[in-house]
Structure formats: C-alpha cells, structure tokens
C-alpha cells in the first residue's frame, strides 16, 4: 500500500510517500531529513493528535470552558473522545490546569481546562 503525506515537522512541508504492508513500513521517500522519516513512520504505525475543544460549565461567566488533552491521543479515537467530553458538564469555578477527565478512554491523556471560568 502507498500513502502520500505532507510532513509537518517543519514549515518546509515536504511531500512524502510511504509504502507499507501488514508487517509495517517498507519505504519512505520524498523527505529531506530524518525528522520527516520519523514523522511518516509514526503517521502509518501510530498517528496521534492533541485535541482541543470545550466543555460545558454550570454557573460560570461563560457557558463553556476550553480544554485540551495534556498528551497526544490516538488519531482514531478523536471522535470517541469528543463524545465523552461533550457528555460532561462541570461546575464553576473552573481553574486553568484543572483536570476535567482523567485518563480519557484509557488513552493515558488527561483532559485539562486551559482557561478559568
């Protein structure tokens, strides 16, 4: 199998092609440096993203407070995590850095508030 990627490890944005099968990555081409190779491999084997969204608040200045995952989470679990976050309502006051959902869906990442409310 073959996939075309744009490397985001630096602003150059090299166009990288990865060939892979069930056993793993066979080849990485198009990258200018080692970081591109590492990025491409992780995109195939275990792509992760950091998630930023908001969560409902009861009794705050704003009806929602922004949150983020304190570690990247598997890309395939982004929408499941969104569902879990959107099913939660927290009580004001909320402090920046406060853990809203610990270890969300067993990913090892905490969902933490990134502002006060």
């Amino acid at each position: 199998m073959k996939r075309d990627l744009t490397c985001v490890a630096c602003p150059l944005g090299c166009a990288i092609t990865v060939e892979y099968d069930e056993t793993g990555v066979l080849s990485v081409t198009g990258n200018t440096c080692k970081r591109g190779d590492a990025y491409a491999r992780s995109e195939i084997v275990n792509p992760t993203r950091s998630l930023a969204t908001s969560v409902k608040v009861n009794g705050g200045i704003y009806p929602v407070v922004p949150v983020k995952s304190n570690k990247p989470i598997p890309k395939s679990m982004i929408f499941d995590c969104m569902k879990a976050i959107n099913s939660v309502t927290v009580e004001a006051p909320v402090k920046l850095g406060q853990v809203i959902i610990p270890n969300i869906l067993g990913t090892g990442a905490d969902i933490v508030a990134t502002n006060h409310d």
Partner: protein
Amino acid sequence: MLNYDLVVVGGGPAGMAAALKAKECGVEKIIILERAQTLGGILEQCIHTGFGLHYFGEELSGPEYADRFIVEVEKTDIDVKCDTMVLDISECNLVTAVNKIDGFLKIQAKAVVLAMGCRERPRGALEMAGTRASGIMTAGTAQKYVNLDGYMPGKKVVILGSGDIGLIMARRMTLEGAEVKVVCEIMPYSGGLTRNIVQCLDDFGIPLRLSTTVIETHGTQRLEGVTIAKVDDRLQPIPGTEEYIECDTLMLSVGLIPENELTKNVGIAIDRVTNGAVVDEMRQTDHQGIFACGNVLHVHDLVDYVTLESQLAGQGAAEYILGTAPKETVYVNTVTGNGVRYLVPQRVNVKNPNDVKLYFRVGRIFKNARVVLECDGKTISSKKKVKLAPGEMENVVIPADVLAAMDENSSITVRVEE
C-alpha cells in the same frame, strides 16, 4: 484628568507584552485600556494549541498563552481598565476613553502604545451576489460562537478563504459534528500554515479547492447554498465552471485588517501595504511618543512574534519616557526589492547602537531562493531558503556595525533572488 507615563491601548498579547517590558525598563505609571471584559484579546477564543512554541518552547492554547501574561501583569502595579473604549488620541497624547464606571475619561500620557489588533474583512468587502440570509459570517465570529458562547452556528459549512482561522474553524466545526463540505481559496496557494492544512483539512478529508471562489449565495431567510466557480489568472470567475453546493453556513476567512481608526485620527502615516503605521526600529510612529505593535502594525503569523515585537515597542516607549533613547536620529528608509511585499520597520534610526531585525512577507511562493540584504549597494547577507511562502513571516538582521557606518544618504534593500 488622569496622568500616566504610558497608556497602552489594547490588552491582548501585544498590549500586555509592551506594558510589562516598559515596567521592567523602569516606567512608573502605566495603564492598559481594553475594550473587552478581560485581558487576553483574541487569544481567549483561540482554544486550539500551537501557541508559544518559539517563545515558551511549549505548545499552549490561546487562553493559556494569554494567561502567562495576565498573571505577570497582575503581579505588577500596572493599572488595567477593561470594558473601556478609547475614543480619541490627541496631538499632545491626551487619550479620551469611555466606560460604564468612570464615564468619560481623559488621560494625559507621556507616551502611548497602540496595540488594538486587527479585525476580519467582512462580506461587504467581497464581490458576492445574493441576499442577506442568516448563516453568513466571518470565521472569527463563528469561532466566538462556538468557543466562548458554546453555540454551534450551523451544520453544513462552506468556508471561503484558507487563512489560518478558516482552517482552524474547519476542524473545530467537524469535531463538533458539523459537515464541512469544502474550503475555497481564490489564490493558487493557501495563505495558511502547512501544518494547519494537514491537521485541519487532510485529517478529516475536507477538500481544499484552490483558484476557486464563491460567486453567489442562495436563500432568503437562512442560507441554503452557494455557487462556487474557478477563477482565471486575473481572479475573475471562469464561465461554465459554476457548481452549486448545499450548505446552511458560509464562513469567511478572507484576510485581516489592522484596526487603525485611532491611529489615522492622530494623523500618523500609514503604510499602504501593511495597513499599519509607518514605524522605526523601536516601533515608534512618525508621531513622537506614539508606538505601535502587534497585529495593529502588521498581521503576524505567530503570536510569539507579536510578543517579541511588542517588547521592543515597550522598551522604545520606556526609553522615550525616561529620556534614554539615542539623542540623535538619522532615519534611513527600508526598501522592498524583488518579491518582498513589505518591510517592518519601514525606517531605521542608524544611530541606534543595536542590531535591527527587519520582518517581511513575500508576495508569492518561492522555491530554492535567496533572501538578500543590501546596504549602500553592498550585499550584507544572502541566505538560502528552500521555501518562502506569503503565509509565513520572514526576517533578516542588519548588524549594528553596518548601521554604524550609515548616514542619511544610505540605503537598505531586501529582495528575493531566484
């Protein structure tokens, strides 16, 4: 009437960094006037991460980045008035403002830092047929609805313009369950950061159509759809390429305009390309004692650079107030050569004893080019660049010893060599 050494107009990242730096340099009485309810500026609604990589070496969300500075401001004796609108700045630095508690305020300042930021180009600035149906808004307005008000403005979305706010909102709306049908960009390239194109569009399979624009909106009460079309080299729609796309929301991410009404009223010279004031290396405008920094001066790609620039303005204001600025001023204008759209600062006091960094943007994409700095006809530096893109701010440094050798007849040019 109140008396302050320094009045800072705007409490976003630019205003806070300038005020803090001026304090650090020894300015006593400083006040920040902010139009919104809290300090932080636009960062408060930019809840995505990626801020602060350069300045803090961490990936912060917008509110987290702002909070670092809010905490610092609170530790000082800098006065802050939120919910306060500055109405006018006079020739002699008399600032007029209004708020609900004090009513009408007059503040005499020794120096003023302008840090009002920018606003989005609205629909009215575009040539687009159709009625005023609801569901058409700027991407930043949509961002406020979703991230501050917790309100989803639509379900089926088309985005016009691939600036970073548009890209960020494409992802945000998708995460919250909306369907983003397409992002149209009139130019043959995106003005957004590559990372955002990959992580906000490619990740979710959202198509980016280049050289494409929205020519008509449909629906009278609520938006029902838009007609998009390809454009030619002169950005004119090509007949026969029209396509109807059903949607209930159209978001516009078609550029930012520095908010310079106050600046213009004082009579400060404005750069026609940046739409911001003409400034020197300490970000002083052509009106003595008035400085400008951040997005009100020129639209930045990263807030980290806003912070650095605003610290310069804060230092410049402090030196002006404390009388420690270079006694002599000999200005040399900076000149844009091939491929360079603008340069900030637009002029440099060659009596300044330090290195001076010039920021610029290119007019189109260049590959394997060189950025050349030329002073008095001599090449000072020629740096190889694998890629230069209009979406990313570039910079080049004039070393102090080069400046020291200059006089009023000198020249400074930055150009791109292919």
